[in-house]
């Protein structure tokens, strides 16, 4: 049976050009979007947007959203939604605030406890979805309200009537873990670069930016790890399979339930991470934190190439989707436009992305 197949070619299959191959990548739309948005702001915005300081300025909100967006993308590839992540940010923020302020726990205990709490809530979400067989859309919509309400009630309970809990900064001051979750990293590098004249300096000789905000590093690390998991591990294959067709996956021996529950736990943990970072950053937490973030995260994932039906998408796409988001939110302040165009822009972007993704999917599967 030794057939020399290399010599055989099917005359009906055209060889694919590099462009066609690129067209089939799920993240293509998001990368194209970044380029378009960059060109748009290059033309309309003042030059300071694309200085080092300006870039850090729009990457920071992009990073906070992106951490959620990447997790949401993985969950969407696995075939589910989580509409409760925005409320989870508020809820986890409250838990974290209470742990460090009211109970005075050091971060080494407070952070794992907060993440554990969030993971447990994520597991509850997942378990309900799997047990009832209801769409995750509805189940997590319920948790959107439950968690938001619980944060309000909880905050009032722990602060004696206020919906804001202050004093986090004092509580975490000097904790050896604080620099991991707040402030800027690689400050020494930028001082050195400024001295060497590579990075522009302020009038007093300090570099124009004090370092890279840590959330950007978390964001990049998460994008890389998520991409690695999705594309290069068995677990990644299971996520795609679970989202693609859960019956086929489970018939082939993929632990579908474990995959889904883990993904729900992951998104909840991502929300808790954003909560920890932003709460330490501002020094307080309130019940409105993370408002509407669930939709923004899903939009970032969709712009990044995730299909609403699951089984297809990319973490790198969500990474760029979040960057588009950050550029548009912050970028409009550098232009003469009314900032409230932001939402119009967002909706249009989403619509465009969905139409584009649909066309791409047809190309990939060869549907006609």
């Amino acid at each position, binding site marked *: 049976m030794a057939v020399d197949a290399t010599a055989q070619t099917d005359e009906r299959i055209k060889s694919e050009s590099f462009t066609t191959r690129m067209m089939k990548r799920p993240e293509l739309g998001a990368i194209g979007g970044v380029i378009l948005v960059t060109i748009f702001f290059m033309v309309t915005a003042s030059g300071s947007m694309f200085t080092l300081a300006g870039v850090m300025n729009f990457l920071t909100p992009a990073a906070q959203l992106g951490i959620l967006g990447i997790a949401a993308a993985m969950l969407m590839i696995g075939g589910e939604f989580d509409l409760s992540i925005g409320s989870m940010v508020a809820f986890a923020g409250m838990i974290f605030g209470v742990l460090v302020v009211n109970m005075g726990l050091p971060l080494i205990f407070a952070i794992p406890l907060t993440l554990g709490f969030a993971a447990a809530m994520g597991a509850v979400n997942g378990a309900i979805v799997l047990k009832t067989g209801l769409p995750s859309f509805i189940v997590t919509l319920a948790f959107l309200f439950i968690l938001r309400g619980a944060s309000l009630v909880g905050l009032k309970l722990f602060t004696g009537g206020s919906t804001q809990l202050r004093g986090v900064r004092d509580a975490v001051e000097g904790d050896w873990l604080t620099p991991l979750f707040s402030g800027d990293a690689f400050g020494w590098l930028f001082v050195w670069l400024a001295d060497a004249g590579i990075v522009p300096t302020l009038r007093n000789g300090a570099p124009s930016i004090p370092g890279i905000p840590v959330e950007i590093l978390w964001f990049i690390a998460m994008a890389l790890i998520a991409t690695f998991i999705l594309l290069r591990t068995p677990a990644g*294959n299971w996520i795609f399979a679970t989202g693609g067709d859960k019956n086929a996956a489970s018939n082939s021996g*993929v632990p579908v339930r474990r995959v889904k529950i883990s993904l729900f736990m992951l998104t909840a943990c991502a929300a808790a991470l954003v909560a920890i970072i932003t709460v330490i950053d501002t020094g307080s937490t309130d019940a409105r934190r993370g408002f509407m973030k669930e939709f923004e995260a899903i939009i970032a994932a969709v712009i990044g190439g995730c299909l609403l039906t699951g089984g297809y998408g990319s973490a790198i796409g969500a990474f760029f989707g979040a960057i588009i988001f950050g550029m548009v939110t912050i970028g409009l302040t550098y232009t003469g436009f009314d900032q409230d165009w932001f939402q119009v822009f967002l909706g249009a972007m989403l619509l465009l992305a969905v139409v584009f993704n649909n066309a791409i999917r047809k190309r*990939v599967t060869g549907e006609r």
Partner: protein
Amino acid sequence: MTDPIIHMEGIKKHFGNVIALNGVTFDVRPGECHCLLGDNGAGKSTFIKTMSGVHKPTAGSISFEGRPMSFDSPRDAMEAGIATVFQDLAMIPLMSVTRNFFMGREPKKGRFVKRFDLDAANAICMEEMRKMGINLRAPDQAVGTLSGGERQTVAIARAVYFGAKVLILDEPTSALGVRQTSNVLATIARVRSQGVGVVFISHNVRHALAVGDRFTVLNRGQTLGTAMKGEIDAAELQDLMAGGQELATLEGSLGGTI
């Protein structure tokens, strides 16, 4: 003649007061293609589900490689070496051929972080598909771009690669065109020559005759007997499947086209 890999004797299956199978005897030897023929509702699906561990028989015995055996789940049957390719094929169109091929059974590499060894997987997948006579454009080609026959072949190749001793094919040719059907039949012949026992379920007599070594006809939950290749012709099989009734009269008006 070699001993059967799996031998099922007097299998009965009742669902409440419905008798789906009422005494079915069937066996498969290595390197043969045993066709199970029957019209819709004859009990073919129930029977293969019993064979692949989905249902437990109400009565009857199953022996696997000479030992009595009882499968509690499809997984048990799979581990013993009984692979079933159902009509839905368990394939995900958006995923690549390789990812589908190894779905749930990914080869791993790396000492600390267990990675999906994609290079090895791609190479194995290309090689296995080539053995089945399909030249993939690339291993990362999505399954959705393959034709029905090619998908069927991927599913068969996957089952054989993962060590199937008995391969149950549930109407593999029912939705295919002429060309694709002949490709799938050729694949079955290849698999058989590797020593795998093939159970070919069909209601198409011509497809069965083209590749089968033995033929068992199932009608109303009972086996009507087994015939060797050459002992029976298409018309007789057709009659048996229909229970020897009206078809004889229909035959004339249809001009033997069924």
